[in-house]
C-alpha cells in the first residue's frame, strides 16, 4: 500500500519523542498555569454562595436585539470604538480603564480620588513641592513625581523644570470620558517619563455628552463645584465643550502639631495645613472623520501649599498659581498608500507657573521668594501603520519636540539682593535667578511590530530611540507576549525598559541655598518584567493577577556636597529594585450589584544598602460595592486600607500607622425631570488617617476629616 509507505516515510523524518515532549510540555504548562491561577484566585477569594451570575446588561441587550427587525436595528445608535481598539485583556501591558460611568458611580470629585482606586497606585501629598499630589506606582516614589507620565488626550502635561505635573495640579472630573492607566514602563511607545506608569485622560467628545448638562456640588469645608457642558453634531462636525470651576477652603482641622520651627512662638504650630484651592478647567474637542482637535486648559488659582515651602506654617500667605494650555490636532489618512495609514499630530502647549513663598511666619524672618516659569513647547509626530504582511502590524513613528523654559523671579534675600529680608527685588534675567532660560530639542523614532505568530499568540516587539539636544539619548525596547491560554484565560509576559531624562532644574538649578543642578546627569532607567493573568471563569466575573519585578539605575537625588559647603547637588544617586504583585477582581453579581476589589503588594529597596523605600505603602487594599437597590436609586461604598509604610533610614520615628477610609455615595436619578441628585460622605468614620511628612513634621500630614457633599445634575 503505497500510501502507507508514504506516510511511514514521512513519519520517520519526525522525531516523535520531541513532538510528544513538546505537546506534553505545552499542555502541562497550560494546565499548570490554569490550575495555578484558579487555585490562587480561589484561595484569595473563596466563592460566595450564589456564585453563578444571572445575565448581565450585555446579554440582555443582545437578546433584545434579536427580537428586533432589520428596520428597527438600523435606527439604533451605537457606541463606535474609534480606531482599532483592542479588548483590554489583550493589551500588551498591564492597564486599568476607568470610564465616566465608573467615576459617577464612585462619586469621585477629583482625579486623585479616582487614581487611589487603582491597584499599585497611591496618592499622597508632596512634602517639598507645594503639597502637590504625588502618584507613586509600585513603590517608585519621589517628591516631584516625574516618573509618572500624565497625558491629556494623548498629549503630555508636565513641567519642563520639575518634570512632574504642574504645581498644585488638581483636576475635576466632569470633562473626563475615560482614564487609561498603564502600570509599568511605556517609553518604547510614549518616550520620556512613562517610567513607573502612564495615565492617559481622554476627554469627552460630542457623542459622549450628546446634548447639554450642568451640575453643582457643594459640601463641607466651603467647597463647591460648578460645571456645564455641551456636545453635539453640527454639519458633520462633532463638537464638545465643557468647563468646570471648583473652590474650597480646605479642612482647617488638619492640624500640624509641630513644624520645622517646633511649636509655640515664633512657630505657628500647632496650626492647620493650608489646603484651600480654586481651579478652573476647560475642554474643547472637535472631530470629523479624519480630524481631531483638542484644546484643554487648566488654571490653578492660588492654591494653598500645605505646611509651607520650608515645612513652616505661615498663616496661608504662600500660594501656588499655575496655568496650562494644551492644543493638539490629529489628522489620520487611512490607506495613504495601499495598506498604510498615516497619522500626523501637531501639538503645542503653554505652561505658566508662579509660587509665592513666605518661608517663615511673619514674626520670625521675612523671607519671601516668588520663582516663576513660562514654558512653551511644540512638536510634530508622524505615525505610520503598515499592514501589508500577513499577521503583522507594523507601526513606525517619528517626531520632533521643542521645549523652552523662561524663568522669572522676585525675592528679598540671598545673593544679588541689596537689603536682605527687605523689599522684593526682580532678579529675572540676572545671574542671580534660580534657573537660566533653557531650551531642549528632542528627536525620536520608534518601530513596533505586533505579530500574531500563531493562533492565540501575539508578540509585540518595539524599540524607540530618543535623542535630546542637551543631555544625551535613550533607547527603550519592549517585548510582550500575549497568549490566549484558554477561552477564559489570557496570559501575558512583558519586558520593557523606560527612561526619565534629567529635568532643567536637576541639570541647571543655581543660587538655591539648598539644592544645585548638575549638568553631568544621565537619565534614570528602569527595566521591568511582568507576568500577568486575566481569568474570566464566567462572563460576569473577572480576576487579574500581575506579578512584577523592576530594577532602576541612576535615580536622581540631591546629595550633600563635601564640607564646608552646605549645599546639595543633583547626582545619579541611587539604584533601586522592587518586586510585588496586584490581584484584582470584578464581579457583576446581579444586574443590580457590582463588586470590585484589589490588593497590591510591593517591596522596593535601595539596591546598594537594602533599605526599604520609605513613605510608600507596601500593601494597599480597595473594595467597592455598587448597588442599584431600586430603579433609579443607587448606593456606592468604597473601602480603602493603606498599610505598612516605612520611615527613611536614620529617621527614628515609629512606622507610619496604617489607616482605613470609608466613602459612601447615594444617588437618585430623575428626582425631578432631567435632574439627578447625589449625596455623599467621605471618611465616614472620621478616622485619623495620615500621610508621611518629613522628620521636621513629626506627626505627619493628617488627611481630610469626615466631609459631606450634595450634588445636582441637570440635563437638557
Amino acid at each position, binding site marked *: 500500500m503505497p500510501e502507507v509507505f508514504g506516510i511511514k516515510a514521512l513519519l520517520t523524518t519526525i522525531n516523535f519523542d520531541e513532538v510528544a515532549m513538546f505537546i506534553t510540555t505545552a499542555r502541562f504548562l497550560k494546565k499548570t498555569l490554569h490550575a495555578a491561577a484558579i487555585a490562587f484566585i480561589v484561595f484569595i477569594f473563596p466563592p460566595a454562595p450564589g456564585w453563578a451570575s444571572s445575565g448581565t446588561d450585555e446579554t440582555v441587550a443582545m437578546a433584545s436585539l434579536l427580537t428586533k427587525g432589520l428596520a428597527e436595528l438600523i435606527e439604533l445608535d451605537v457606541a463606535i470604538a474609534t480606531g482599532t481598539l483592542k479588548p483590554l485583556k489583550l493589551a500588551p501591558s498591564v492597564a486599568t480603564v476607568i470610564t465616566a460611568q465608573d467615576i459617577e458611580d464612585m462619586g469621585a470629585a477629583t482625579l486623585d480620588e479616582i487614581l487611589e482606586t487603582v491597584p499599585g497606585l497611591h496618592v499622597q501629598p508632596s512634602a517639598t513641592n507645594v503639597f502637590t499630589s504625588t502618584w507613586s506606582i509600585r513603590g517608585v516614589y519621589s517628591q516631584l513625581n516625574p516618573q509618572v507620565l500624565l497625558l491629556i488626550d494623548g498629549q503630555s502635561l508636565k513641567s519642563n523644570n520639575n518634570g512632574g505635573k504642574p504645581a498644585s495640579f488638581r483636576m475635576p472630573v466632569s470633562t473626563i470620558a475615560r482614564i487609561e492607566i498603564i502600570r509599568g514602563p511605556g517609553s518604547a511607545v510614549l518616550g520620556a517619563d512613562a517610567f513607573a506608569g502612564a495615565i492617559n485622560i481622554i476627554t469627552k467628545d460630542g457623542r459622549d455628552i450628546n446634548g447639554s448638562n450642568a451640575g453643582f456640588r457643594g459640601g463641607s469645608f466651603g467647597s463647591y463645584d460648578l460645571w456645564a457642558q455641551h456636545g453635539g453634531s453640527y454639519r458633520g462636525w462633532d463638537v464638545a465643550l465643557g468647563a468646570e470651576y471648583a473652590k474650597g477652603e480646605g479642612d482647617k482641622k488638619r492640624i500640624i502639631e509641630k513644624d520645622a520651627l517646633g511649636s509655640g512662638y515664633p512657630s505657628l504650630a500647632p496650626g492647620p495645613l493650608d489646603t484651600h484651592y480654586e481651579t478652573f478647567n476647560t475642554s474643547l474637542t472637535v472631530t470629523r472623520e479624519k480630524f481631531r482637535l483638542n484644546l484643554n486648559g487648566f488654571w490653578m488659582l492660588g492654591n494653598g501649599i500645605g505646611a509651607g515651602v520650608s515645612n513652616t506654617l505661615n498663616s496661608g500667605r504662600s500660594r501656588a498659581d499655575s496655568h496650562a494650555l494644551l492644543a*493638539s490636532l490629529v489628522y489620520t489618512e487611512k490607506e495613504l498608500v495601499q495598506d498604510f495609514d498615516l497619522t500626523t499630530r501637531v501639538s503645542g502647549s503653554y505652561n505658566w507657573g508662579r509660587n509665592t513663598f513666605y518661608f517663615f511666619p511673619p514674626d520670625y524672618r521675612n523671607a519671601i521668594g516668588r520663582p516663576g516659569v513660562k514654558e512653551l513647547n511644540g512638536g510634530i509626530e508622524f505615525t505610520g501603520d503598515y499592514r501589508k504582511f500577513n499577521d503583522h502590524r507594523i507601526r513606525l513613528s517619528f517626531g520632533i519636540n521643542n521645549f523652552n523654559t523662561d524663568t522669572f523671579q522676585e525675592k528679598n534675600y540671598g545673593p544679588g539682593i541689596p537689603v536682605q529680608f527687605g523689599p522684593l527685588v526682580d532678579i529675572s534675567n540676572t545671574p542671580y535667578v534660580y534657573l537660566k532660560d533653557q531650551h531642549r530639542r528632542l528627536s525620536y523614532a520608534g518601530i513596533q511590530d505586533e505579530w500574531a505568530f500563531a493562533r492565540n499568540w501575539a508578540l509585540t516587539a518595539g524599540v524607540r530611540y530618543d535623542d535630546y539636544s542637551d543631555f544625551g539619548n535613550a533607547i527603550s525596547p519592549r517585548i510582550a507576549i500575549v497568549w490566549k491560554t484558554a477561552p477564559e484565560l489570557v496570559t501575558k509576559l512583558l519586558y520593557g525598559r523606560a527612561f526619565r531624562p534629567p529635568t532643567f532644574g536637576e541639570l541647571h538649578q543655581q543660587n538655591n541655598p539648598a539644592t544645585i543642578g548638575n549638568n553631568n546627569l544621565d537619565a534614570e532607567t528602569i527595566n521591568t518584567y511582568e507576568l500577568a493573568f486575566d481569568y474570566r471563569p464566567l462572563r460576569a466575573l473577572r480576576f487579574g493577577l500581575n506579578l512584577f519585578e523592576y530594577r532602576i539605575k541612576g535615580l536622581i537625588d540631591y546629595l550633600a556636597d563635601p564640607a564646608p559647603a552646605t549645599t546639595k547637588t543633583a547626582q545619579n544617586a541611587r539604584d533601586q529594585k522592587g518586586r510585588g504583585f496586584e490581584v484584582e477582581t470584578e464581579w457583576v453579581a446581579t444586574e443590580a450589584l457590582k463588586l470590585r476589589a484589589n490588593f497590591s503588594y510591593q517591596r522596593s529597596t535601595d539596591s546598594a544598602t537594602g533599605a526599604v523605600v520609605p513613605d510608600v505603602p507596601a500593601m494597599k487594599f480597595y473594595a467597592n460595592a455598587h448597588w442599584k437597590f431600586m430603579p433609579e436609586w443607587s448606593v456606592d461604598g468604597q473601602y480603602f486600607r493603606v498599610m505598612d509604610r516605612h520611615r527613611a533610614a536614620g529617621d527614628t520615628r515609629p512606622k507610619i500607622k496604617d489607616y482605613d477610609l470609608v466613602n459612601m455615595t447615594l444617588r437618585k436619578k430623575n428626582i425631578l425631570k432631567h435632574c439627578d441628585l447625589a449625596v455623599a460622605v467621605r471618611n465616614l468614620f472620621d478616622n485619623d488617617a495620615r500621610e508621611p511628612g518629613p522628620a521636621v513634621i513629626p506627626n505627619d500630614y493628617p488627611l481630610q476629616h469626615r466631609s459631606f457633599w450634595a450634588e445636582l445634575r441637570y440635563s437638557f
Partner: protein
Amino acid sequence: MSAVPLQRVSYAEQPSVREYELKAVYLYNFLQFVQWPESRRTVSKDGAMVIGIVGESPFGEALADLQADVRRSGMKPVRIIQYGPYQDHMDFGECHLLFVSQTEKGNFRRIIARLKDSPVLTVADTENFISAGGMINLVQSGGKIRWTINRAASDRAGLRLSAQLLTIAVRIVEGP
C-alpha cells in the same frame, strides 16, 4: 508638555462590544434575508447555518452571546467558525456567511479569489471591501450602522438578496 505620541494608549472594553454586538445580530439577520442556491440549502441535521470569521475577530464575546441567546430563545441555530489569520490553503466552503475582519485588509482580493464565486455571502466593515469584490460592507453613518451591497458579486455567487436588504442599503453597486 511636548507633543506626545500618538501611538495610542487606547484600549476599549465596553464601546467596541456594543458596536460588534449589533454587527453580530446583523450577521445573524443576513442569514435570514439571503436565499442560497439549492446545493447549499441543505444544512446540518440541527439546521444550523454557519458564520465564518477570517482574521482577528473584532466581535469579542458577542458571537458566543449570540449563539447562546439564539439557542435559548429557540431560534434557528448558528455555528461559528473562527479561522484566524488568512492562509492560502483555507477552505471556506462550509460557511454560509464569511465575515472578513479589518486585519485582513491586505488579503481582501486573495480571499475573494479563493472563494471563486462559491455561494458564500461575504461581509466586512472596511472601506475598500466592496471594490475588492466583497458583497456586503457595514458602514457607519450618523452613529448608526447600515450597509452597502455589491450586487454583481452576490449575483455571480448565485445568492438572492431579499428586497428588504436592498432597500435599506445605503448604496448598491453593480460591480466589479
